[in-house]
């Protein structure tokens, strides 16, 4: 096929091609190459092998960041899925005011992570926040000092994140629930299966594509988490709620330790690929294979 055939489409897609190659591929190569150097304030081509990675894995702060991202990833993903699914099931019960409830559950998703972080920072304020309210109502035993507690601060982040993200899962699941054939419900009710059992054992497995999509989208967002934590805890107390993304940004912009930042960002990238690869393989390879047969 001559090159000039369909030339208009090629020109039209040129920006996309250039951006994909320079930004999405080029930047990763750039980051990887410079992660093998001892760049400090400016990128310099001074090869030191995998030194930066060795140093990275020895950092206590990086360990904390990785541990946090696992806790956050786990609690946030599971929390969003359970609450999102629960809400979608509730809304699916032909209730009155359905669209009002849906609007209420989804509005946090329209807000910025910074806003979410700042609101919850105020709600969970150890002096004036909910703890204080509970004390005023006579429940003096009530403790909610998560934001100043090293071990619990990351769970405060999780609550704020689930509050914001659960509505998203709800929308996805609800779309799936509404696509379920009425006949399945009829046969389930003829069989006399309890409703909650039908939801968990029959309907949920049928929603598997929705669940998988939700998990992949949430998990890809988990690795990126930055603004929420910055607004809510600033990575504190101490560095108890720091994450890989924060570690990278800190080394780039405030500690002038570019080599470390590149190395850490490459590790972030690899972990995203590890999450995506099985899904992409399933979605685009296996499925096409079966579709063609």
């Amino acid at each position, binding site marked *: 096929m001559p090159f000039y*055939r369909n030339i*208009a*489409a090629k020109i*039209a*897609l040129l*920006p*996309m091609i250039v*951006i*994909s*190659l*320079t*930004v*999405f*591929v080029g*930047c*990763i190569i*750039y*980051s990887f190459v410079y992660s093998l150097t001892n760049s400090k304030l400016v990128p310099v081509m001074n090869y030191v092998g995998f030194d930066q990675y060795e140093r990275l894995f020895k950092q206590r702060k990086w360990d904390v960041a990785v541990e946090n991202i696992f806790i956050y990833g786990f609690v946030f993903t599971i929390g969003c899925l359970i609450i999102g699914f629960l809400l979608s099931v*509730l809304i*699916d019960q*032909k209730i*009155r005011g359905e*669209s009002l*409830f*849906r609007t209420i*559950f989804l*509005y*946090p998703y*329209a807000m*910025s*992570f*910074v*806003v979410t972080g*700042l*609101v919850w920072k*105020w*709600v969970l304020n150890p002096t*004036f*926040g*909910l703890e204080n*309210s509970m004390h005023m109502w006579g429940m003096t035993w009530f403790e909610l000092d998560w934001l100043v507690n090293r071990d619990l601060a990351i769970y405060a982040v999780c609550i704020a994140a689930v509050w914001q993200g659960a509505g998203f899962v709800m929308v996805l699941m609800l*779309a799936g629930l*509404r*696509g379920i054939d*009425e006949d399945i419900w009829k046969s389930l009710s003829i069989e006399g299966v309890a409703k909650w059992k039908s939801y968990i054992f029959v309907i949920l497995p049928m929603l598997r594509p929705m669940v998988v999509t939700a998990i992949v989208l949430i998990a890809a967002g988990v690795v*990126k988490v930055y*603004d929420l934590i*910055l*607004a809510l805890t600033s990575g504190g107390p101490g560095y108890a709620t720091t994450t890989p*993304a924060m570690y990278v*940004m800190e080394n*780039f912009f405030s500690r002038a330790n570019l080599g470390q930042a*590149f190395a*850490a*960002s*490459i590790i972030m*990238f690899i972990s*995203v690929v590890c999450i*995506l690869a099985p899904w992409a393989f399933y*979605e685009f390879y296996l499925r096409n294979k079966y579709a063609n047969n």
Partner: protein
Amino acid sequence: MSTIPKGPRPKHLTVGRIGLYCFIIMCALFFLMPLYVMIITSLKDMDEIRAANILNLPKELSFYAWPKAWSQACTGFVCEGLKPGFFNSIKITVPSVIVSVALSALNGYALAFWRFKGAYFFFGLCMFGAFIPYQVMVYPLLKIEDFLGIYSSLPGIILVHTIFGMPILTLIFRNFYSSLPIDLFKAARIDGGNFIKIFFYVIIPMSTPITIVAVILQVTGIWNDFLLGLVFAGRDNQPMTVQLNNIVQVDYGVAEYNVDMSATILTSLVPLFVYFISGRWFVRGIAAGAIKG
């Protein structure tokens, strides 16, 4: 996707249904609580905030915090409130949305109707970009923009938003155009339409629904962005989210929670407004973004 529940509404309230309503209302209260706290805190004066329960309605309405948050609160050394940030966000959002939606519509059109060898390879590459953590690309991209002479400027941040909005927008436009009847396109070809003519006279007039979805996605996404604005917009163009964070986090003297909360509400007004007036469209945007190619 049909979002209308099937079957008649149940007529009788059973114990189970009362329980269901109680539960869903409790969930709704949990989701509304931060919004409620935000609003009432912004209407209290500081003495009341210090003395009273965070959940109590204000005894006396005080509107002092709102104008202060808008035009006097201090971010670092400048005390101009959020106002400059608001206009910066508009200056960033409007062109970014127009450029990214137009470019992505063109991409989607070329991919759906004018496929050439290799086009889908680059599309896949572009989609892959949607999942790469920003932290991997931020620094190299900064270097590229520096080289182009647009780093830390309005065109710089617009380009960045266009780049990072492109994968998902291209996907939804391509999916939409692929669902159009191909005969329409063939008829236009027989009538002598070329790439550009068909795009302007046949495709664009049919693109209203998907364009609305794309615009909603981009307006909320770009308005809520923090990280990219922080890095790429430069000191003079800092978006509202960045200024909000500066106002709340950087305290000089006593923290004024009512001002902080007014500022937080002001920042989320635009996305919330978009969310409430767009209703179903917002939900469609989520569903469109979640459907895989």
